[in-house]
């Protein structure tokens, strides 16, 4: 057959084959991110968080009044159940000491975020170290490593056994009552969760072929852990961190309810505000509702995003 026909039939074939999509091997993360963008949960969650963070950052500069100033204290009579609800100058009304609720909510957002983030960081870092250590030991430490690992895990189990509140109380008992105490207490509670998680996924990764390959190639163990196992084990930890932010905020509220919260009640923090407002629930329910709703929505935001991330990263939950 002629050369011409030959070439143009290859030509023709080429374009026909070209039309069908070739499966691109996108990385786990890009994949996950793509899925995230398409998930309603993720979007709602992200929006909530964004709003919350913005408020937390700029809020304090937008407060119409000083959140601690008892400007209208003459107008509120807790002893007669007389409170001041929303009105022109005070959009959310006044609290039981004649302070502007709206301003307090704004500033409270920052405090709440602070507690949430710091305590989660504490839990994350500590948990990361412990979990990483025993994970590394278990995967590459041989027999001795396994023993080390099991000891650490016993310890972690032990921590899991303790109700979070009691941990908090114990910390408070030793360190005295303060915002730091609250953060540490709430953080400590998260430690075992992170530790177990990281270790778990490290063990999973440790068995993976590429690690065995690396080992057989004689890559140094430390390098394997740092450059391969840990990076690949991170995703669940990150998810958990997001979820923990929610729990941290709620735990902090619970501590305030038990009177272990921030010792200076003048500084507005949603948990403390909620705990204080309980007493006036009959006369001024809104005083409790504002911070409660604040806490719930914020926690929800983090939970939504976290769950969405989890689904995105875990094929099983998807489909």
């Amino acid at each position, binding site marked *: 057959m002629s050369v011409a026909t030959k070439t143009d*039939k290859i030509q023709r*074939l080429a374009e*026909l*084959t070209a039309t069908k999509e*070739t499966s691109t091997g996108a990385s786990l993360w890009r994949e996950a991110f793509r899925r995230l963008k398409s998930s309603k949960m993720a979007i709602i969650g992200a929006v909530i968080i964004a709003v919350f963070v913005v408020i937390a950052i700029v809020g304090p500069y937008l407060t119409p009044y000083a959140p601690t100033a008892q400007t209208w204290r003459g107008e509120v009579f807790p002893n007669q159940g007389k409170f001041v609800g929303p009105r022109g100058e005070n959009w959310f009304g006044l609290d039981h000491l004649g302070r502007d609720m709206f301003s307090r909510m704004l500033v409270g957002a920052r405090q709440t975020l602070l507690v949430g983030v710091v305590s989660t960081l504490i839990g994350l870092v500590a948990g990361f170290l412990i979990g990483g250590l025993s994970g590394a030991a278990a995967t590459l430490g041989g027999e001795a490593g396994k023993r080390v690992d099991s000891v650490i895990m016993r310890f972690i189990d032990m921590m899991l056994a303790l109700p979070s509140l009691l941990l908090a109380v114990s910390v408070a008992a030793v360190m005295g009552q303060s915002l730091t105490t609250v953060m540490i207490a709430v953080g400590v509670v998260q430690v075992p969760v992170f530790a177990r998680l990281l270790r778990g996924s490290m063990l999973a990764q440790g068995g993976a072929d590429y690690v065995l390959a690396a080992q057989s190639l004689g890559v140094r163990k430390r390098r394997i852990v740092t450059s391969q196992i840990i990076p690949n084990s991170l995703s669940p930890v990150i998810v958990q961190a997001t979820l923990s932010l929610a729990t941290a905020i709620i735990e902090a509220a619970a501590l305030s309810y038990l009177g272990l919260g921030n010792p200076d009640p003048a500084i507005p923090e949603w948990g403390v505000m909620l705990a204080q407002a309980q007493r006036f629930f009959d006369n001024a329910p809104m005083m409790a509702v504002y911070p409660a709703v604040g806490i719930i929505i914020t926690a929800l935001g983090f939970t939504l995003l976290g769950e969405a991330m989890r689904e995105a990263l875990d094929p099983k939950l998807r489909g």
Partner: protein
Amino acid sequence: MSLLTVDELTVTFGGRGRKASRAVDGVSFEVDQGQVVGLVGESGCGKSVTSLALMGLLPAKGLTIGGRAEFDGTDLFTMSPSARRDLRGSEMAMIFQDPLSSLNPVVPIGVQVTEILERHRGMKGEAARKEAAHLLDRVGIPDPTRRLKEYPHQLSGGMRQRALIAMAVACAPRLLIADEPTTALDVTIQAQILELLKELVDQEGTALLMITHDLGVVAGLCDQVNVLYAGKVVESAGRRELFAHPTHPYAHGLLGSIPRLDAPRGEPLNPIRGSINDRIAWADGCAFAPRCDRYEMGCLSGTPQLGEPRAAGHQVRCVNPVLDDAKAEEVPA
């Protein structure tokens, strides 16, 4: 008239969001009483989907089935779901590829066998257990009464497959569909299982639809063979005829790619180029064209039709079929 008549069966997945993909594209074939029919092709050619479609086991979401499939004169696809349930397991049964994952890990074998007896043969308690034991015994599982109490993970791979078969034949179905029943097993076991299937078919006169990519299995078992490529039957013929004269370049290639003892030493194998992924849409021409050595311009002018270029009853879907067997050997590598 034949037991199962599949006519222009098409199966399309997707829909919501993702672009629809057609897994089976107008497949037609027949299965007669006691006949063993093979569906052959590489993985992804649509053979398993066909079988699941016939059994009605495809996930309903985003699924569209076209064409007809008559079982004993009644159309399976227009049948009521409950009627279909009654049919399944009693009239038509299926054997799956991976015996371990196909057995419920937390339920004893015994229960998994008796439950079908209870469902279709109304057997209860002791009677059912006896029958179950008998069935296991029949498919060659030693010491069946003990096995009844055991769980899948306690059985060997072969045993599991036998158990699955026992469940399939529990109600003496008229049609048995076997989807790659031997791929998960090692060779010695494979033979035994095939042997078992064969004798079941012979004894019961059960019709068997054999889904496989393994031409050896086909050669050993099937009366009639349908070769699938990219969702279409590309060649259909009797076993002997097909092995003697593979006419579609694909079938030809498949046979050619099997190592042969009788071939002179040092002669290279001649595998088919590329994978099932590089193909073109049937609408544009022959999907096999990109991998085909005999491909020419004509292959790209619309879907090639089934014809009988070589012999009556030997259908081939090709513009440029392999007609002279001599050529079959010296395909340029």
